[in-house]
């Protein structure tokens, strides 16, 4: 009898209501407002930066500290990229900290104990990350054990294996090339100048690329008759972003130049942004997280997608482990402790939905930066680790609460 009892149709709510008489100014304004709403997380980052800039008397945005912000948070951001993908698919990965520690330890064996070339050590380590991911992905995708359980087990297993590999000792003093991925800078390629020209040059190229790409996208949409944002706002946003990039580059250029970690990150963000935003694989991830049954009945091979997601997470966890080990120049038993929580927080602060189907790479990166600025700012202010923890917890809770509230208001599920 469901015919009569299901919610009756509500054609009025669906609309057919096309915008009424359009006033140019109000549409422009509403566009700006909805854009701001969508980019709430970005505004939150700006606010956090401003607050700590004031609270730290300007230390936060000093060139050296800006550089530190990137290098100190690089591995969390790398993990956040993989984590947000896992979360969008409706899973979770609690093991990434332990996997990072395990791979860091193994890389120590390769690079230090066995004396393999640095590049071979790195490749082998990443492969081991892939194997770890395949192991967990197998249980989750093909056996059907919830990711929470599998990766909770993984958290214990790989922490344990890290200790086994280390054998109660730290492995240390890595080759210089290896260390560069965590500590290195592209410095003084053009000689020792006050402002590194390479950094500024790269920034300029990035800005030009951004502008060209934005205009192409806009043209493309227009040619297909899609609505685009008002031209004023479009230009305004580009100018704003360009200025931020320039200032950021200037800060780096007056310190040591471009950190290698930043290059790794930039490449990852570009690739994974593309994967999640525009590739078929990315679409499948969103479809699975949004409605697993519908995805399955649309011919998406949901198990394979899940499997490869975890393989990918394993590789990224391995990479994060390498970067962290390189930065400390030491593979120790405590490495990666709590990374999983920071990466998960980053994804959720960045707008990923607990129920899956929603989340972006850029959101996760910004979420990670917010956590990074909180850590860094509070450290500068001399706030103890205990309060740092409490504040970060509160921020996570509020971010998700805001997300839930927002969804309820917009009448989602």
């Amino acid at each position: 009898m469901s015919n009569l009892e299901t919610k009756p149709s509500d054609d009025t709510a669906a609309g057919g209501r096309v915008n009424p008489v359009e006033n140019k100014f109000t549409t422009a304004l509403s566009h700006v407002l909805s854009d701001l709403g969508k980019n709430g997380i970005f505004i939150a980052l700006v606010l956090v930066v401003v607050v700590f800039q004031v609270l730290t008397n300007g230390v936060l945005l000093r060139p050296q500290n800006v550089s530190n912000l990137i290098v100190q948070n690089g591995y969390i951001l790398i993990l956040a990229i993989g984590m947000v993908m896992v979360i969008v698919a409706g899973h979770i990965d609690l093991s990434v900290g332990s996997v990072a520690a395990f791979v860091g330890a193994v890389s120590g064996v390769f690079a230090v104990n066995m004396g393999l070339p640095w590049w071979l050590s790195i490749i082998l380590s990443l492969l081991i990350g892939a194997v770890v991911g395949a192991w967990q992905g197998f249980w989750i995708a093909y056996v059907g054990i919830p990711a929470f359980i599998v990766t909770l087990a993984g958290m214990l297993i790989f922490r344990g294996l890290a200790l086994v590999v280390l054998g109660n000792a730290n492995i240390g003093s890595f080759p210089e090339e290896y260390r560069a991925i965590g500590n290195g800078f592209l410095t003084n390629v053009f000689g020792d100048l006050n402002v590194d020209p390479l950094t500024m040059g790269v920034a300029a190229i990035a800005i030009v690329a951004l502008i060209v790409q934005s205009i192409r996208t806009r043209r493309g949409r227009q040619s297909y008759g899609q609505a685009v944002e008002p031209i004023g706002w479009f230009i305004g946003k580009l100018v704003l972003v360009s200025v931020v990039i320039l200032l950021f580059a200037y800060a780096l250029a007056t310190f040591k130049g471009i950190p290698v970690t930043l290059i790794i990150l930039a490449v990852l963000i570009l690739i994974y942004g593309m994967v999640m935003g525009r590739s078929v694989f990315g679409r499948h991830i969103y479809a699975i997280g949004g409605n697993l049954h519908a995805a399955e009945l649309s011919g998406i091979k949901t198990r394979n997608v899940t499997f490869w997601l975890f393989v990918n997470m394993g590789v990224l966890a391995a990479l994060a482990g390498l970067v962290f080990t390189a930065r400390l120049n030491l593979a120790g038993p405590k490495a990666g402790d709590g990374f999983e929580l920071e990466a998960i927080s980053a994804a959720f602060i960045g707008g990923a939905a607990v129920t899956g189907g929603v989340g972006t790479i850029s959101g996760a990166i910004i979420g990670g930066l917010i956590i990074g600025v909180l850590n860094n700012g509070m450290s500068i202010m001399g706030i103890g680790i205990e309060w740092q923890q409490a504040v970060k917890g509160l921020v996570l809770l509020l971010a998700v609460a805001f997300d839930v509230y927002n969804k309820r208001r917009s009448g989602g599920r």
Partner: protein
Amino acid sequence: MTTNILEMLSITKTFPGVKALQNVTLAVGRGEVHAICGENGAGKSTLMKVLSGVYPFGTYEGDIVFENETMEFRDIRDSEAKGIVIIHQELALSPFLSIAENIFLNNEIKGAFGLIDWNKTNIEASKLLARVGLRENPTTKVRELGVGKQQLVEIAKALSKRVKLLILDEPTAALNDEDSDHLLDLILSLKGQNITSIIISHKLNEIKKISDTVTVIRDGKAIETIAKQDVTEERIIKDMVGRDLEHRYPDHTPHIGEEILRVENWTAYHPQDPTRIMVDNVNLNVKRGEIVGIAGLMGAGRTEFAMSLFGRSYGTRISGQVYKHGVEIKTRTVSEAIDNGLAYATEDRKFYGLNLIEDIKRNISMASLKKLERGGLVDDNKEYEVADGYRKSMNIKAPSVLSKVGKLSGGNQQKVVLSKWIYSDPDVLILDEPTRGIDVGAKYEIYTIINRLAAAGKGVIVISSELPELLGICDRIYAIAEGRITGELPIAEATPETLIKYMTMEKERA
């Protein structure tokens, strides 16, 4: 004073846009078994929900008089307190709790300090189990019982609430013959204990066997109430279907060509209970430009057939052959089925068909992303163009294809589902209850789309429990019952009466 235990007087229940019940009057005599018949969607369950307080007083018009008192139930607890207990088709037992725990759930027997008195609970439960004829230990977990026994636990639970009027919604739908017989005997024995029953059922022989009075409901109206001596299957069927088939269906001139799809000996078993056959040796075919209906009651195996065919999405131990244009094809996975030109629009749009948190565009492209791929990436602009084309041609009412599907009405959601499958460019579309939960205007549009698909040379299979719909749009209709095809009728020979006869045809009993 009357001898009626229950009188529902002029009940009218309106949902926005739909009159589910119009002026229904129902009188149930004390100590009788009263059957209520009607097609899916006729209003039977709505009536029972009004009676049991699921739809509270004030949300309907009319009066409920129970034991000569006018009732104003606010919720189920109110009606249960008066002795009216409803047992739904989907049983409401907690599988991991014991029989006794389930019987006294939310009605626990408490001893000292307000703690549960387990001894007394189990003793009382044993007594109740004896009354319903279930020989099981009360501490057995409910999940270890079969459906038939679970049904008995439900009745024991009702008895524990001192039930006076027991309502059973299709109690034998999921039972085998032996369990059905036992249940029917039990209902009769409860009658001897002065418990009145209302039984909702499709099974006409069953109704004839146990009921004292039959009321037939159609289109939200009570058609007639028939006393036991006057009950015949023919009369009930006539009451159930006797509606006009005016111009609710667009004209359709079939241009039927060669056979596109043929399914032979298709068989599938229940996924949890591999001994239970759900699709039993089904043979059917579809021709180019033909609209073929599958008529069956809920649980007859229609959806099970379609889903097992479509990439083995349902069931275990699936066997049978599929031929397209005479050549055998495999449909072992959904993507294989899609690649072989099949499409299946599910019965339940929201849970199986759509990603509600995504926009129209991405839902339409979901099954055909390969077509939009260029250099490894999805061509956003082309995707927009494709989706916008469907928005216009299918008349999806939304501001743009960037609107979230969750915000659309049922009819528009269904159009998104159809767009998705049409874009996958299938040869045969299986549409499972394509107009369920959709208002009349949108139904007409869906029928028009179905006609258009047939005119374009596709084969269309429509699964529906609404006979007028099938009779209105199909060229040929199969009837399915208990997983078997029980009849095949060209539209010229199909009448509601013959179809219902086939749809309620039960297996030969030993």
